[in-house]
């Protein structure tokens, strides 16, 4: 048993932190937040140069042949810096789904682009109901000759505005899981319209994507007709780990900022951190951050090794990290007092990113219910 990172992984972490400290200070995050796309292709290209997009792909697809444990290291650091990047949607969500469910031809065709950063992928899943489960997939795909025709709207699609293609879940039959089919659709295909949604977290954009009779050829079905949900689930488990890792980084930094502030901010002639009302809040932050990390690291190991409890491990990590990051960043605002509530102070960037992570792919309530089902309650 060894529940810790290797020397190589620690090196990856310090390299990532150095890079992000230099290249993505919060002034850069704010500049991107104010831009049209919140995406800087040159910044992403440098992340590609560092190998981050290639980490979890096998070498035959241009990857480094590593896994989600290694991705966790990088994503924690990205969260620590609230850095805008499509790494989660492109590599962890679309990439891992295609890797685990796509045909050889689809993998050969699409994965090297994701690994090299030349293309960006994402997944379009949720609809008006806001449900993240198979039942929420109601948008129909009709057979038409050798092709399929998609009509409807998907919501909260992360990074769709900069994606080259997306995996779209559509309904091709009755039954919750059994009636879902997954399609590869180019964002530039005729009939596809992407509209960025104005959300509270403008450092990570989500979009509504409408499909007006979009024709998709049969060779772009992933995993077979009616097999979409089982394919998607494996990708989603990995993306849950990725989001949890980012949430750990977000919460970690919010805690560090609170502790630094509590040591220096003086009220009534002494540092506010000497008051237990403040210091105990900080202690509770540590409990939450460390426990979120423990569950996330274990889930990363579990999906990498495909152990039977991997889906449960991913659900536990996401449930805990979702609550932890919201609570820690919220308490961090409280520790900072009035300044923490201003636009000028960076804490709102963390608080908002925490909310994105909490909501995306299902909140704590959703994943606790999954845990309850796995426990046969």
């Amino acid at each position: 048993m060894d529940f810790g990172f290797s020397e190589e992984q620690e090196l990856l972490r310090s390299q990532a932190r150095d890079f992000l400290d230099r290249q993505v200070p919060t002034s850069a995050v704010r500049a991107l937040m104010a831009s049209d796309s919140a995406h800087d292709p040159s910044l992403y290209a440098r992340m590609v140069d560092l190998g981050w997009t290639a980490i979890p792909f096998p070498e035959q697809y241009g990857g480094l042949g590593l896994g989600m444990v290694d991705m966790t290291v990088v994503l924690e650091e990205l969260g620590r810096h609230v850095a805008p990047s499509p790494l989660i949607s492109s590599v962890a969500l679309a990439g891992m789904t295609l890797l685990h469910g796509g045909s050889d031809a689809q993998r050969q065709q699409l994965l090297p682009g994701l690994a090299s950063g030349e293309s960006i992928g994402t997944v379009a899943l949720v609809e008006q109901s806001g449900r993240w489960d198979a039942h929420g997939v109601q948008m129909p795909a009709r057979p038409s000759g050798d092709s399929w025709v998609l009509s409807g709207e998907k919501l909260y699609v992360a990074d769709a505005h900069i994606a080259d293609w997306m995996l779209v879940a559509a309904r091709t039959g009755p039954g919750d899981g059994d009636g879902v089919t997954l399609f590869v659709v180019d964002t530039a295909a005729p009939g596809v319209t992407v509209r960025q949604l104005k959300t509270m977290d403008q450092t990570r954009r989500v979009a509504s994507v409408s499909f007006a009779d979009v024709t998709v050829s049969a060779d772009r079905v992933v995993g077979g007709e009616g097999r979409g949900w089982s394919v998607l689930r494996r990708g989603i488990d990995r993306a849950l780990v990725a989001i949890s890792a980012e949430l750990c980084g977000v919460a970690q930094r919010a805690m560090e900022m609170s502790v630094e502030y509590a040591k220096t901010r003086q009220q009534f002639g002494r540092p506010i951190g000497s008051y237990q009302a403040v210091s105990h809040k900080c202690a509770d932050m540590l409990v939450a951050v460390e426990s979120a990390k423990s569950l996330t690291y274990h889930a990363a190991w579990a999906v990498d090794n495909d152990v039977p409890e991997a889906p449960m491990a991913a659900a536990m990590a996401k449930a805990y990290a979702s609550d932890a990051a919201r609570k820690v960043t919220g308490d961090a605002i409280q520790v900072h007092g009035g300044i923490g509530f201003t636009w000028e102070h960076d804490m709102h960037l963390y608080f908002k990113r925490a909310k994105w992570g909490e909501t995306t792919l299902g909140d704590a309530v959703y994943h606790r219910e999954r845990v309850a089902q796995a426990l046969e309650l």
Partner: protein
Amino acid sequence: MDFSLTPEQARFRDGLRAWLRDNLAEELATPLPPMGSREALQRRQAWQRKVHAAGYVGVSWPVEYGGRGMSPIESMIVNEELSRAKAPDLINVIGLNMAGPTIIHHGTAEQKQQHLQAILTADDIWCQGFSEPNSGSDLASLQTRAVEDGDHFVVNGQKVWTTLGHVAKWCILLTRTGSAEEKHSGLTYLIVDMKSPGVEVKPLVQMTGDAEFNEIYFTDVRVPRTNLLGGVGEGWRVAMTTLMHERATLGVALQVRSRIAFDELSALARETRDDGHARSDDPLVRQRLAQLYIENEAMRFNGYRGLTRMLRGEPPGPEGSINKLMWSEVNQRLMETALEVLGPAALLADGEPTAPARGHWSYGFLRSRANSIEGGTSEVLRNIIAERVLGLPRSR
């Protein structure tokens, strides 16, 4: 990162499982009488002796002191497997987890020779004399006085919350030899024979109606100088070794117990019906149970991270304090949830024929209030985390 056991560790675990399969049923055939009678003590001592004879007590102690020189992983395996099999607790818990490791670290050759083997075999039961009526969280303010008198110390004072005090042969006693102003540096650590003249033990009845703990009064008790552990004035340093081991041990053992309690609670929620529906169908109950399970797993993995640090020879991290703090709150919430699942029947206590599980849950609910006080209050643990881990200024 790797969560699997080595082949040797897996063999060790399987050996223990097989041994428990062959030996535990007989042990559990006659229910253990509650502590208090002579028979109760003897039964528990005999069980520890049996486990020791099979080679599963003190496995991580050095070979020269009767252990097997194994790593903390094997120690964790023993803890997990004994708990999972619902084996009786090893009676000499203070000796094994606190006094023994402290003697190994700070004891003289004679002290090691005299005490360690008898701790492993439960021939000598140990208790701990640290807390006092006016010194709980602020341990270093303790007032039990030890005065040097030739080859002896003369001890006067009172200790409280002494687990096993009424059956113990030996007590690890923290005393004041210096002035009150010296605080930490005025403390001295002694090993006291509980049969010495002047030692009086009184049971301390707690809010459950039980007397798990005792008060000990010391009146002119003469303790030979050879029973000094560490030097005069070095008591605090020695006591830290004891407390570090207490918390490290708690980390693994508490999580396993909590998991067993969770499984019992899940069964209760499935079996208890409300208007024809299992209570486990209630979305609110499901959310609470899932959260308890998740937090319990978080404690397990926190414990593994702490263990990994230890195995890598790194300084201890915050995991011990974090897990004690989490466990007390998780266990209190677990008991509260159980009582909510039961509805008004939760009020029924042992002795009432219709009491669910013979009052197991109502007892647990009351007992759990001590969890956030014993072994370091939640407030003290938050201070420790804030000051020692996060580096915040000392609270005043």
